[in-house]
Every structure is written in structure tokens, then in C-alpha cells.
């Protein structure tokens, strides 16, 4: 079958889901069999940020918007140095992108990044299936899975995203320093999006980025004025090694700000519990209500787990909730100048409406 420009020939590819459903489409990007957790995002723009967001580790992302790759590949917009997702699924991709910053097309990029892609499937049908069935694992393959479906399904069901944080965190400490002396924020990298460091740095603080498994003592020895807990992939409850460290830092009463996985880890460290959402929140249109002011903000989100409000300890309060399903979107802590949000105030991609939270955090840092 012809590709969008009617020239090159693209290979048949299949997506087999845990429930036995098979979607048949065409391959683009790298050609590589892959098992992954299938999630969908409803963002209209921002596919480059999605592709380079480490939080998608172990997952195959489905774009519900049907025209992907319109503005090509713009390295300046990457949120990390590499693609951490397992596979990429779109309805169609653009072979003739157009943007003044565009450097290449999506197919070439995915080939170079060794990310397999699948296109020309009914992404809406797939999305609805995930919506009603809940998040499922899937296998991207190039031979008709009907032949040995049972064996494949067994394999599929056995799959889960493991060691996610360890796989994506940085290996070494790195610093973003201003010329003149200023306040210092330690950024715990659980799979951080670049824009978190950028957002802090632009606001006039030095950022020291540390690996996820850095001990509390080591962090404290850096004498930070604030601690930033980044986003990241996987099941938060898996990160039991990290909880005691965060608990120590919480007790140290240093201003702390958590985003997404960072928010979940802090809550778990404080004794709360997490649960898996049926199909997660992924998109740039999620309404979040600040219950202290009744203001609603449109936020960028990408998470499959959430914190159970009922499990929160006395010293923690949910100050923000999702206006659609009332799940916890933000927590403040009475015991310490710490707060966290489930969504992404650093945007990239998505709305910038909650950027002010970085100011709120840095106010605390600066008054420390």
C-alpha cells in the first residue's frame, strides 16, 4: 500500500491487544516487535514533547488527533535527549511537514530513534476500547497475530512496566548555574522533562539535577534552598527505596514542589496510597479546580496513577481536584513548606496556565 505521498511502500503491521483485538495498519519509523502498555493522549499539538517525555517509558502512545507530524521534527522542542516510549501509534503522519524550524520528518526521526510506529489504524476505535476496557498491554508485530494468538496473549498479559524510574533517571549530577550567586534548588530527576529545569532556571535560581536514588543526606549536604521532585514514568508504589529519603526531606522542612510522579512519591512517602486509573489522564485539556479559590485551570496531564484522597495523612490536604472526576490534583502539607501537583505546570506540551506554581514554589524558596 502506498504511503501518504504515494511513493514508498510501507509494511503491514498489527497491534494485538490483551483483550484479543487486532488492529491492522502500516508500519513507519523503526521496524521492531514491541510489547508495551497502550495509552492515548488527546493533545492536538505537542507530539515532539510527547515523543521525548520520559514519563512514557514502557508505553506505546496513541495520538487521538489524526494528523501528526505537520510541523516535522524540531529538536529545540525536545523534552529529553531521547525517546523513552516504546512505540508510537497515529492515524496518519505528515511526509511533507512545514514549519520554519522543521529539520526532518517524523518517519526519519523515529527510524533514527529506533522507535517503531504504526499508522493507518482506527485510532478512535482503539481509544474507545481503552476507555471502556481500561489500559491494556499490546504487541506491535509484523506478522498476523492470528496464527499464534494464545501464546502471544499470554506474553502480553505478563508484561508490566518495571524499573521505570531507574531506566530514565540521569546517571550523574548536573548543574545549571547563573553567573552570580543565587538560591539553589535540587531537582530530583525521576525522568524529568527539560522544561522543569528551564522553568526554575529562568526564574533566577541555580538548579542541581540529581539522580533518582540520591540519598536525603547527600541532598541536604548540597544545602538546597528548595527541592523539586520531577515527573517520571511507571507505578509510583514500586519506588519503595525512594519513600524514606523523601520523608526525611519533608521532615527537614525545606520548600518542596512535586510534579506528577514527584507528587505521587511525596504523598506515598507521607503515608498516602496510590491507585491505578482506569485509563489515565493524558492530554492538554484537563480541568483542575483549586478548591481554596474555586478557580479552574486547564492543565497538561500525563499520568496513569493517582493518589487516593482518603488515604492522605492529617497533615496533608488535597487543595486541587480534577473537575471531571474529582481525583486528587494537588496536595499541600502542613508539616512543611511542601506542595505538589499531579499535572504539569511546566507544560511542554500544553497550556501554560499554571506556570505561576513555579513562582509560588520559588516564593517559598526565596523566603527560606
Amino acid at each position: 500500500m502506498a504511503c501518504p505521498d504515494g511513493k514508498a511502500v510501507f509494511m503491514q503491521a498489527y497491534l494485538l491487544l490483551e483483550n484479543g483485538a487486532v488492529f491492522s495498519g502500516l508500519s513507519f519509523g523503526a521496524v521492531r516487535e514491541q510489547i508495551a502498555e497502550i495509552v492515548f493522549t488527546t493533545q492536538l499539538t505537542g507530539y515532539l514533547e510527547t515523543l521525548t517525555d520520559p514519563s512514557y517509558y514502557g508505553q506505546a502512545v496513541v495520538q487521538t488527533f489524526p494528523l501528526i507530524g505537520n510541523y516535522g521534527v524540531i529538536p529545540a522542542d525536545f523534552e529529553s535527549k531521547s525517546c523513552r516510549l516504546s512505540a508510537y501509534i497515529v492515524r496518519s503522519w505528515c511526509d511533507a511537514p512545514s514549519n520554519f524550524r522543521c529539520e526532518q520528518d517524523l518517519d526519519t526521526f523515529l527510524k533514527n530513534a529506533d522507535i517503531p510506529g504504526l499508522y493507518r489504524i482506527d485510532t478512535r476505535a482503539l481509544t474507545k476500547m481503552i476507555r471502556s476496557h481500561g489500559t491494556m498491554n499490546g504487541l506491535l508485530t509484523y506478522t498476523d497475530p492470528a496464527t499464534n494468538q494464545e501464546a502471544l496473549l499470554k506474553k502480553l498479559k505478563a508484561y508490566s512496566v518495571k524499573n521505570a524510574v531507574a531506566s530514565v533517571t540521569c546517571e550523574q549530577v548536573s548543574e545549571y548555574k547563573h553567573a552570580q550567586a543565587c538560591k539553589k534548588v535540587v531537582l530530583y530527576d525521576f525522568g524529568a522533562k527539560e522544561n522543569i529545569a528551564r522553568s526554575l532556571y529562568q526564574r533566577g535560581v541555580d538548579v542541581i539535577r540529581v539522580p533518582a536514588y540520591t540519598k536525603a543526606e547527600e541532598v541536604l549536604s548540597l544545602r538546597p534552598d528548595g527541592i523539586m521532585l520531577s515527573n517520571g514514568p511507571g507505578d509510583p508504589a514500586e519506588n519503595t527505596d525512594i519513600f524514606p529519603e523523601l520523608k526525611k526531606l519533608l521532615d527537614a522542612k525545606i520548600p518542596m514542589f512535586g510534579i506528577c510522579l514527584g507528587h505521587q512519591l511525596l504523598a506515598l512517602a507521607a503515608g498516602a496510597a496510590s491507585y491505578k486509573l482506569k485509563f489515565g489522564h493524558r492530554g492538554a485539556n484537563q480541568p483542575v479546580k483549586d478548591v481554596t479559590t474555586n478557580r479552574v485551570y486547564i492543565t497538561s496531564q500525563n499520568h496513569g496513577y493517582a493518589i487516593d484522597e482518603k488515604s492522605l495523612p492529617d497533615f496533608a490536604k488535597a487543595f486541587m481536584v480534577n473537575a471531571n472526576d474529582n481525583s486528587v490534583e494537588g496536595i499541600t502539607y502542613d508539616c512543611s513548606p511542601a506542595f505538589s501537583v499531579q499535572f504539569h505546570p511546566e507544560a511542554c506540551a500544553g497550556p501554560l496556565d499554571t506556570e505561576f506554581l513555579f513562582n509560588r514554589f520559588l516564593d517559598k524558596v526565596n523566603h527560606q
Partner: protein
Amino acid sequence: MPKNKDIQKVLVIGSGPIVIGQAAEFDYAGTQACKALKEDGIEVVLVNSNPATIMTDKHVADKIYIEPLSLEVIKRIILLEKPDSILSTLGGQTGLTLSMQLAKEGFLEKNNVRLLGANPETIDKAEDRQLFKDTMESINQPCIPSKVVTTVEDALSFADEIGLPVIIRPAFTLGGSGGGIAETVEELKTIAHGGIMQSPIHQILVEKCISGWKEIEFEVMRDKNGNVITVCSMENFDPVGVHTGDSIVIAPAVTLSDKEYQMLRSAALKIIDTLKVEGGCNCQFALHPNSFDYAVIEVNPRVSRSSALASKATGYPIAKVATKIAIGYTLDEITNAVTGKTSACFEPALDYVVVKMPKWPFDKFVYAERKIGTQMKATGEVMAIGQTFEEALMKAVRGAELGVTDLNMPSVAELSDKEVEKAISRCDDRRLFVLYAAVKRGVSLQEIHDITKIDLWFLNKLKNIAQMEQELKDDLLKQELYLEARRMGFLNSTIEKLARQKITEPIYPVYKMVDTCAAEFSAETPYFYASFDEENEAAEFIHYNKLPNKRVIVFGSGPIRIGQGIEFDYASVHCVWALKKKGFEVIIVNNNPETVSTDFDTADRLYFEPLTTEDALNICRIERPYGVVVAFGGQTAIKLAKSLERAGVRIMGTQNDSIDLAEDRERFDDLLERLDITKPRGYTVFSKAKAIAAANNLGYPVLVRPSYVLGGQNMIIAHEDADINEYMDIILSHEIENPVLIDKYLGGIEIEVDAICDGEDILIPGIMEHVERAGIHSGDSIAVYPARNLSQRIIDVVVDYTKSLAISLHTVGLVNIQYVVYQNKVFVIEVNPRSSRTIPYISKVTNIPMIDLATRVMTGERLKDLGYGTGLHRPGNYIAVKVPVFSFEKLHDVDTHLGPEMKSTGEVLGVAPNFHEALYKGLLAAGYKMKKDGGVLITVRDTDKPEIADVAKKFSAMGFTLYATKGTSKVLTDAGIANICVEKIDEGAYNCLSLLAENKVDYIITTSKKGRIPTRSSVILRRKAVELAIPCLTSIDTAMAMADSLRSKYTPENVSLVDINTL
């Protein structure tokens, strides 16, 4: 938290008649607003001069005033009704301007009326050019270098400063009328002058021309708590320089990276927040294609045409939500009606793309300047939804009813390669087709881009379509290629034509949902569009919600155009309601985003699809309807009848054969002969020679027209052979399948009848009489109900003729018949066995719900059981006068002389206890200032001279100074009427144009034997009058009516106010 409890009674101001730049979208918005208010138990008082609207329907509001939208009248309604609040942001520019005037004068405050939706400071900040600029600067939003000026000299000196080209934008005009791009000093002088004249405050903005930048729009909403959301982004195919109303638009924006998108989105939210709008707001940006530079072009702090498009493109009901916000709700307190569970405080996610395409009137106005620029010229638009841009574009093009099903426009195909290349730089209504032809002929995309600045993304898509077309022509139609062509939006019939082979195993589309959320949540009231994919959600939805009810499909009327306006949407919607009431499951198919019919909750299901046979049959295949209705969707729906019937679909009501019988000249003549009904003598011809022979045989004047038309397209009265020659050339330039009709012209009283027929009985709610004699299109005539000058004998004949025509045509439903009464004899001019343009207003003034009754008759009920009787209904106590409204100021070079070809875009109604009062109200509502002193310039053709003295006498007696050109002057002087003789334009340096320039003329009575061609001096005079907003009366009858009305004692202060719910 509930709404503000202090709001109990709200006045809603509508947008008045349909004009270019303000069309059906405000009926849609206003209707949604009224419904939203009533939902909350608020009493709604509505005022709108446009009777063809759904918002002026009985049950939409509690009190309905079809009254002139003049400040004085609105004040009187406020004093009478004592509303506690007024909703200002849903009646277009008209409603907004009136509300602001009331607020600024302190009238609202004095009468304790709260202004909802916007406040004057906000509006000024958005609409006053200088204040807008200052406001934007204060929040660091870049604007384009510009200056507000009030004189041509200042415009010139500022242009000197910033360099040409510059854009002229007049303040406070609709659709940017009076503006334009000036490339030279001479052009600047002309446009600046025109703009200053047209601006009600004589103010224009001279602005650096940034044409070529991307034009991006955001529809945003804000509530009193400061919650802000973006409903939709839109990107114009045509870069800055073309009015967004005249641009092909895609939603969402497609060529912007997230960085660019978020930059503009944040800017839009910042703007709405600064303006403190509580409701919807439209922000237009120019984005430099090669950097992050941008500029705010325009902000509309109200519901607009773009918000109607954004609503339909996303499923988010902006007007409804804006209304709820205006009465105190916050976004998070409002439910998303489509999902039924999530809140309205979110941003819609699309999993398809939408293409909007304008519908221009140049097929009717053959001499109009077709160039497209900063002044909107489109009368309507279509919207198409697809999974790819190609698919949506192809759907939009065939839905626009241009006579093509793909991007090959015959008139462009005729051009040589050189001509095509030259045409690329000319921005007119055919540009898309020229670009496509250029791509096909091998002009490089880069070259096209360099000339047009249209983003290469769009041009690449055109190339994809062109390549597909070529492959279909060259290759064997293999399954993959065929499917690929279908995905690109090619119809099966188009593929067969291109591939020159029959498709043996056709692929049909599936139907996908528009659900506001890209499938993240399940939807309660989605709508559907066709695409090529796996899952058929419509079939699933039908299966899932299985109702025992019979299903009926109602086909809508497509884009608003001259001759087929909002009246047909009114009819379609009422048909849907009537069928629903009867227990049918009703499906509507339409592609016009401006309308009530395409609101998500009008029918049980909506298909947003083009109205072609193939698209219609595909829907029938899924819905398997009991029957379909084509009688209410104008010519668009009627023309589906034949092919649907042939495909075995049941047409409800009047059958296709009856339509054919009424339109086929020979069959119709036979029928009349059988019924012993006379019509003007006439012939059917195919050639120019035959036409001339026929005309001479009948004797001039004759009426010339092609058969099968609506709105009198290409219809003229010919006075001599030369006229026939000219018009046959134009008509024959299109391929003609149907013959040209040549009839003897009879200048008698024209009357019009709408009737309902059940096959046995008829019901005529009333007879309408035109003020103008036959010869002026019924849509352009002032019509009076009930008829005033008919004897009982004539009335009896009309009723008798109507009954026998309706019955022998086997009409089941509506029929519209036009007659001329000439020398005391009744002649039939035209019979249309379908809904007509007069239905909405006649239903309202007679209190006979015609569409409802017609629909019930179509489902088998008998008229005599419906409770409204049969025969001619007894006239009521009120006189209703319908006055046409034109958009001549938007259409350059169009002759304003009225004739058999329809030119009006809308209408207003005057309702009063007597004729003169109703006429006065109608004229006032139509925008005539009704000035009772000043000067009248009279220049009429020889055939009108015998009658002109009577008219002149009346103006003279009122104290008007009369000016007349030589021939006319002599007639007046001979009749003893004082007048000043002036030269015609070509007769001297000081001529009638000079009079106009000196502000000495308040009315012009001008008729000429010939018109149309823009260089004729009579046309120049009339165009000048348009420019200077001087009323131009082009028929003796209209002039007489105007004189009588001016002589009457009526003023905006004393006309009666009629709540039509009490009629």
C-alpha cells in the same frame, strides 16, 4: 452556586436582517441564548426585526417584538416591558452596538436595567482602534503599527511614515466593509475616503500591511471568577490580507508547533482576561511564518460568526455557555451537554479536522468585483469534517454547491497555462481552483507559495489530491488505490469518471462521532460525519439506542446564498420539530455551521455532510429511513428528490414527478391548458437565434430566464434584441441542460400565495401583494399581507387557481404560487411545490404554523382534522409588510437596480394595525433613516416618465427640493412641479454626482432601461449612492410607497409595539 437571583426578566436583542457579515449564525446564537435563559426560568423578551428567524418563534421567547432595531424603539420596549437585564453579546454587532448606546446614554442605569455579557469599557477597548491599541500595549501584546485618522490627508501622511502597502479598516462597520489594501497613493485616497464615509463615526485605521503572515484565530471563554478556556483554534488557508469570513479555514490550527500554539493561546487568554469579558470572545492573530513574531489583529468580545463555526467544529455550545455565564454561572458549574457528564470548563479535543469554505454570490452578480480582500463578500459558508485535510476539503468543495464534485473548476480548466500562472496572484473566489490547476500543470509548490504565501503544508495537500487524480486517470483501479482515493474524499462517482471504469465493489464510508473529547468520555448527544475507517459509530449508536420509532431524514438547505437564505433553515428545523412531536426519530443532514438545524440538539441525530446524492444515499444506507423530506431545504434538498426516488428511498410529501411537472415547461403548459388557467405567453428555447425570434414574436418587453432556478438567477426583463444577445451569451457560457424560457412580461400587480395541500383540500393562510409591479423578483419586493388592492372576484379566482393547481400537481405539503393580476385578469407566473421564503413570516403573522401543518399532512393527516380549517384563512387584525434588505455596500460594481434577478440578502418585517404604519416600520427596520426633508434626485427611464410626476408631487409637497436630469426635469416642469435641472454624469463637470458629494441629496429615484454593466453612468450614480449611504429607489412603486410613508404621521416614537405572541 446558582445563577444570580436578581435576574428574572431579560431582553435579548437579535441581529436584524441577514446581511453579508451578519448572517444565520446569530439566529443560531440567539435561539440558543433564549433557550438557555428559559431553562433557568427567566422570562425572555426578544426583539429582532428579522421574521425569518427561529428565535422569533412563539415558544422561543415569552414576548416577541418583530420591531425595527432602532434605539428609540428599543428604549420604548424597555420602558414597556421593564426587563431587569439586557443581553448584549448574542445579537452580533447590531445587538452589541445598540446595547452600548443604551448603556452610554445612561438609559439602562436610569431604568435599572443590568447589562449582561459585556460592559461599555470592554467593548470600547476592543472596538475603538486607539483604545484597543493602548490596551494591547499595556499587557505587552504586540499590535501592527497603525494610526487612527479621520481625514484622507492624515491617512496619506501616516502611510508615508510606515510605507505602502497599508490596510484601511473603518471603525464600527460590519464584516470590515469599506476597508481594503492600498498599494498606491491613488488607491489609498479612494479607500480611505470610502472608509471614512462608511464608518458611522467617520474614523479609519491605517495599518501596516502584514499580508502573507499566517492568520490564526482563537475562540476563548471567560467567567466572572476569571476561569478561562480556549474552545478552538482555527487557521486560515489564506494568509493575512483576506477577511476570515472569506477565507478557507481549518480547525484546529495545523501548521503551528506547540510553542507557537501555546504562545498565541496564552495571548488570547490574557486578552480576554484584561478585557474582563464574561462570555465568549474571538481573538485574531497574525503570526510571522518564519519567526515567533505575532500581532493581535482583532478582538471581538461577543459571540461571532467564528464562534458559530467553532461551536459546530468542536461540539462546544458557545452561545449557550456564554448565556449561562452572563446570568451568573461559572464554567465549572455548567455541564458539557454533549458528554452529559463532564463540565464545560475544559477545552474540546478534536480527533478530526474541519474545513470551512465560504459561499460567494458571484454566480448571481456576474459584474461584481470578485477580488477577495479585507472586506467580507461571502453570503454564507459550509463546513466539512474529515480525518484528513484532503477529505474535509473535498467535502467542503462539493458541499458548497459550485457545480463541481472535485477541485476541477471548468472555468479554470479552460484557461491556458499562462493564464493559470497569472491567475495565481489574483486573489478571488476561484483561487483554490486556480491553485489546484496550477499544481496539476506543474507549477512548483515553492513558486505558488512565493506568490500567495499560502503555507506549503496546504499546498502539499493540494498536490496529494492532484497526484491521486492523476493516478486514478493513469492506473488500473486497484483496491488499494481506490481505498486511498476514498480516504482523500473522492466520491465513487468522481472516481468512476476519472478512472473511466465502473466500480464493481463500492466502498462506503463509516460514520464517526463529534463528541468534544476525542473519545475520552462516552457521549450522549454526539453528531456524525462520514469517513473511511473501521468502526461505524453511527450504526453502533443506532443499534445501541434502538428505538421502535420510524426514522425520517430531513435534508437541509446548505450554505446561505442569495435566493436561499435562513428561511429554509427555519423550515427544516420546524419540520424536524413537527416530526419529533409525531413520534418519529428524526435525522437531519446539513453542512451549514451557522444554523439552528446543525445545533446538536435540534434533531435526534445530525449528520454534518455535503448534500449531494451520493453523500445523501450513504446516510440512507446507514439509517434505513422510513422516508425522507426534501421539501423544506430549498433547491439544495429538492434537487436530491429525483435520484433518491430512483434509489428506492421514500420521499415524503409531494413526489418528484410533481416537482418536474411544475418545472418542465411543456408539461406545465399542458396542465394549465387542462385547468383553463392562463399564464403569460411564452416560448422555450435553447439558442440565441430562437430567443430573439421568440422575443419579437411576443413583443418586448419579455422576461428571459433559464428553467429550474431559485432566486431568479440570470433572469432579466429584455426590452430589445441587444438585451437578449447579452444575456444569452452569459447563460450559454455555462453548459445548459435545461432550456431558456422567454415569456411576455406583464407589468401588473404581483401576488404570492403559500398554501398547504393534503391532496384534497388546501389551506391558504393569506394572500400577499407586492408593492412593486411584476418584474421585480418576489424576494426583492416589498410584500404586504393581507393583499390590499384585490377585488373579491380576483381573490376568489386566486383561491380557485391555487386549489386546482395544488391538487392537480398532487401536492402533499407546501406549495408557493406567484400570480400577476394584469388588466383585471389573473395569470400564473410560477408554481413551486415546496417551502418558500415567505413561510416564516406568514406563519408568524397569521398564527398558522405552516411547516408543522405541512409536515403533519405529509405524514398522512388531513387538513380538515388539524383545526385550522381549509380554504383561505380569514385575515387578522394586523398588516405585515416585508421589506427586503441588501448588502450592496459589500459588493463592488453590483448595480442596485432591482429587477427579476434577486439581489437582497435578508428581510425585515413591519407589523402594525394599518398599512402605512406597517410600511413605515418595515422601512425603518430595513435601515432607511426616513428623513422627512432635504433633496430628492430623480432620473428615470422614458417608460417611467408618465408616472413620475405623481411621485414627485408628493415629495415636493413635503418640502423636499427636487433635482432632476433633463428628460425627467421636463416632465416635472410640464406637470407644474418645481425642480432644479442637473446634468447627467456624462453631460458636464457639475452633474448629479456633484450634488451627492455636496450632501444635497437624501433620496434618489433612479430607473434605467439598461443597467448591470458597471461603467454605465446610471450604475455609477447608483454605486455612488451606496457609497454615501443615500437610499436609492429603483422602481416608481417603491418610490411612491416611500413618499406615502414619509407623509404619514409615524415616527419611531409613536409606532405601535406589537408582541407577536399576542396576535
